[in-house]
């Protein structure tokens, strides 16, 4: 080989990656050797600077078998969370409510009163109960895009909005928030919020076409679940008062999109907003429904649909006072929950596992206001301290 080697070949030779013919030339060519020496200096410099890429790692890593277990947990969690989101993807959930047509309904104290000449049941949330649900049993619905769209269409065609909440508005302090939201906003003593925002009230009516809803149930392979005829055309009115969000630390923008991104996130979101804690305050929404609507029966159907056996659903339904309870279905393997004493009442602490996008939410209801403290982290003690420092 007479032709001189190019710089790339000379570089490859330094790594022992040059072919035999090239090496033979290099051994006998002083000009190429001289050029290679210059390149060697450059490469050695870069190698020194990048040596951290080949340094031995500390022995703190999870062993492959442990990591594989984490991986399977993550897959299951994502599956459940994804199904959970598809099922409950509605603006109502973002407002902190879980209202699912035909499935599980937000309920409260029934106090019969005359309204426009009709007798209606008026519900008001007084307590929170968590029901663990195995969402993986809903593959048929969530894995089927056509069916999913039909469910979304049914929900959107069943809801008539009377009042839209609009975008959250940032206010200067708790006094302004109280004035705008129309209730006494509580801010923890001794802490300065990074942002206080008020979201307007919302109101809507739900009217269900029982035949369409039943057809969807049948199509999703659950023809064993029969909806009561009483839901057909029943008007359920929901009013959600204005709510207030008090943020501490560096938090994501309160817009729905940003929040959705965070919810979708892996562990990175928690590290991006490590000190963010959000306190939400919402006067209890009211739900009014015709008295003949058997909420417990609907709830049982909803629970069976999400994967509970008939016996399990019936047993759970009996334990809940459906007239005053906000029922939160949680993915069974993706979250844990416990009852805690907070702000002088009993609250519920919901936590997602620490190894995959840890999150916690502390919920309680006091004097007609629903409170929720949430954070992308694991330090739930912080939420309890914060709650207990409310004036």
């Amino acid at each position, binding site marked *: 080989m007479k032709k001189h080697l190019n710089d790339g070949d000379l*570089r490859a030779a330094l790594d022992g990656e040059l072919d035999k013919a090239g090496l033979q030339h290099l051994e006998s060519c002083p000009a190429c050797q001289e050029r290679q020496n210059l390149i060697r200096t450059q490469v050695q410099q870069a190698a020194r*600077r990048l040596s951290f890429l080949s340094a031995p790692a500390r022995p703190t890593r999870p062993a492959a078998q442990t990591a594989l277990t984490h991986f399977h947990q*993550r897959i299951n969690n994502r599956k459940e969370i994804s199904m959970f989101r598809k099922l409950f993807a509605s603006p109502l959930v973002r407002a902190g409510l879980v209202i699912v047509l035909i499935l599980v309904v937000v309920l409260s104290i029934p106090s019969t009163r005359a309204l426009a000449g009709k007798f209606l049941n008026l519900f008001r949330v007084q307590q929170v109960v968590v029901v663990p649900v195995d969402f993986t049993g809903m593959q048929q619905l969530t894995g089927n895009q056509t069916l999913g769209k039909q469910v979304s269409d049914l929900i959107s065609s069943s809801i008539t909005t009377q009042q839209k909440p609009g975008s959250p508005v940032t206010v200067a302090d708790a006094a302004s928030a109280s004035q705008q939201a129309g209730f006494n906003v509580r801010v923890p003593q001794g802490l300065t919020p990074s942002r206080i925002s008020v979201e307007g009230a919302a109101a809507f009516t739900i009217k269900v076409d029982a035949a369409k809803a039943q057809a969807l149930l049948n199509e999703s392979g659950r023809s064993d679940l029969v909806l009561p005829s009483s839901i057909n055309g029943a008007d359920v009115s929901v009013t959600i008062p204005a709510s207030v969000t008090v943020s501490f630390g560096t938090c994501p923008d309160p817009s729905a999109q940003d929040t959705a991104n965070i919810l979708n996130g892996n562990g990175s979101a928690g590290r991006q907003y490590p000190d963010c804690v959000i306190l939400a305050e919402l006067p209890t929404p009211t739900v009014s429904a015709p008295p003949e609507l058997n909420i417990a029966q609907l709830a049982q159907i909803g629970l069976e649909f999400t994967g509970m056996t008939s016996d399990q659903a019936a047993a759970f339904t009996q334990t809940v006072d459906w007239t005053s309870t906000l029922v939160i279905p949680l993915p069974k393997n993706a979250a844990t929950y416990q009852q805690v004493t907070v702000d002088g009442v009993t609250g519920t602490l919901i936590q997602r596992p620490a190894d995959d996008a840890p999150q916690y939410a502390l919920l309680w209801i006091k004097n007609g206001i629903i409170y929720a403290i949430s954070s992308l982290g694991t330090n739930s003690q912080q939420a309890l301290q914060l709650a207990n420092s409310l004036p």
Partner: protein
Amino acid sequence: MKTDFQTGSTESSSVAQSFEQIFLEHWDAIYRLLVRMTGDPAEAEDLALETFFRLHRHPPQEGEGYNPGGWLYRVATNLGLRSIRSFKRREQYEMRAGKEALEVAQEDRPAVLFEKKEQNRLAHRALAKMNPRRAELLVLRYSGMSYKDIAEALGLSPTSIGPLLLRAEREFEKVYRALDQEEEA
């Protein structure tokens, strides 16, 4: 043939097993690479799990040149680079990368350790700032991959690696020096 780790067919048990084999075979290397890149064990584990999640969800086509190890390295490298480019997290990575380097270093003289920490911090910044394809090449090579494996992972000819690597090293050096001068000024 397309590998499908998620099918529910009877064939899937053997395929699923092969995913587990790939996982167990490559986990340590992928995790170590990401620890070195980010300096943060928690972030590294998160990104390594994400890497395997992508393999599980969208596995590469089987056929000539099928190389799941190379594919994993490439995905992990890109996730690591994207992560260290993130403005909000970059600073804390640089700090942790420096700390990590101190912990693994054999050297115990404070002045040398400090200099090493500074070098690592600047190197992270340079990788984050330079051409992403060249940064990817540097990470793959300096984490120990052969030219053949790099070529397979990036879909390049093995003979092109030398010239591309030299170009990447020159750009890295240029960016590194510019950052160094910028900080001194």
